[in-house]
């Protein structure tokens, strides 16, 4: 799998101008709030179109394709589960057109892999944060996407749940053999999950590579954003 993006988009005073590529694995786009991370994912998913440039998935130019024909799995912040459908119908939503038996088999298979088989009759409103995430992942994975786009998937859960969910995200990537592009403002998430990190600031990818490389970045803004590291050092000196 390969994803290549070279695109510009202006929205009011904000402008997104990205040059990005990934070849699979687990990539985290790290950046402060307002850096344009969600916009970047929406551009890849086809929810917004670039003013200039292109998006290529596996070499195919998808810039002009609508979201429904791009084959990407999208998990927005807070998961956006359909509140008027139970978990089963949420997961099956993307499988329209399949024969009923096949649809049922695929829903149950993905539910089993993610450990949510017992939740299929439940209403999304009654689920915990972790359960919601797994349902949102299942719903996106069941269509066998070419890439998974995760928008701040761990921002709505507490620290303990977060730790567990991070393991699950890694599991998803390896079990379903799907590349993951995950955006977050959280350095710990990026450090623990990513094979590769790209730092986004003011609508641009300003640095990328492994965590260690980022910490030695010469870019002042990146250094400032990552200065949270000093906080951890202070914290650990207290312990």
């Amino acid at each position, binding site marked *: 799998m390969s994803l290549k993006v070279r695109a510009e988009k202006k929205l009011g005073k904000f402008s997104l101008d990205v040059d990005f590529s990934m070849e699979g694995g687990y990539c985290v786009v790290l950046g402060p709030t307002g850096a344009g991370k969600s916009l970047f994912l929406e551009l890849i*998913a086809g*929810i917004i179109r670039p003013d200039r440039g292109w998006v290529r998935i596996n070499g195919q130019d998808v810039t002009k394709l*609508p979201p*429904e024909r791009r084959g990407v799995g*999208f*998990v927005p912040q*807070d998961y*956006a589960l*359909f509140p*008027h459908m139970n978990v089963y119908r949420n997961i099956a939503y993307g499988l329209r057109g399949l024969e009923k038996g096949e649809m049922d088999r695929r829903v149950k298979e993905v539910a089993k892999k993610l450990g949510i088989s017992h939740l299929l009759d439940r209403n999304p409103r009654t689920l915990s944060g972790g359960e919601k995430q797994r349902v949102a992942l299942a719903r996106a994975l069941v269509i066998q996407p070419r890439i998974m786009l995760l928008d701040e998937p761990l921002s709505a859960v507490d620290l303990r749940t977060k730790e567990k969910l991070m393991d699950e995200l890694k599991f998803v990537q390896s079990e379903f053999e799907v590349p993951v592009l995950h955006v977050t403002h959280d350095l710990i998430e990026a450090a623990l999950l990513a094979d590769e990190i790209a730092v986004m600031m003011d609508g641009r990818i300003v640095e990328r590579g492994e965590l260690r490389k980022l910490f030695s970045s010469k870019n002042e803004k990146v250094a400032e954003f990552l200065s949270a590291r000093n906080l951890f050092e202070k914290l650990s000196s207290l312990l």
Partner: protein
Amino acid sequence: MKLYFSIFLALLSSVIVVFIMLPIAATIGLQFQDSEAFASALSDEAVWKSILLTYYAALLSTLIAVVFGTPLAYILARYSFPGRSFIEGIVDVPVVIPHTVAGIALLVVFGSNGLIGKFSPVKFVDALPGIVVAMLFVSVPLYINAAKEGFASIDVRLEHVARTLGSSPPRVFFTISLPLAIRHMAAGSIMAWARAISEFGAVVVIAYYPMIAPTLIYERYLSAGLSAARPVAVILILFSLFVFVVLRVLVRGGDVSESES
């Protein structure tokens, strides 16, 4: 102090409740002292005809409001485009102009020599279509605003996710947006229907005949006085109370089933 404040709130509130209740209760109450007139109105075919015509015309106008108002409500809730505020303003115009003025404006368009009326094979003046357009004109803002609020309250990310799951915009509309806005749409329809039923000013200008209930009451009041108009008014009040109480119960019943599911 807290008790005084509660009493203060309760006192002011009761003034408005009494203000609404008193004329209605008095009209109904006094009518029971003249049960003979009430009984004769109950068996008066013209009364029932006018009430049924009122409800039927209001139902037609509400259906038209839903069919044409829902897409507009969706557009206004979902898209920003030049002139949106202008269109929102236009939608609210019928609320702020006197209804007799609305009736005259409709006459200019739908009258026998009107812009549309001149060419239309359908007759509007003193006919059911005239009643329906008058009701539609005054009631459609209520429906559009309620439906718009419903669509606006849906997290747009639900629609985005549905798109990435392979759904075209029409399918997203019918499987996600519409079901999630349906309660607002239902509430808006009931409000619009109620508003259409209660319309008099615009209707009477364009279609005095066939008589809807408010026109019949007005006509009886002018020709034979309060004692002739009141029994019909009481029947209309009781009938409307019954219909809208039943509708409220139905809508609330829907609420219960949703929170349980």
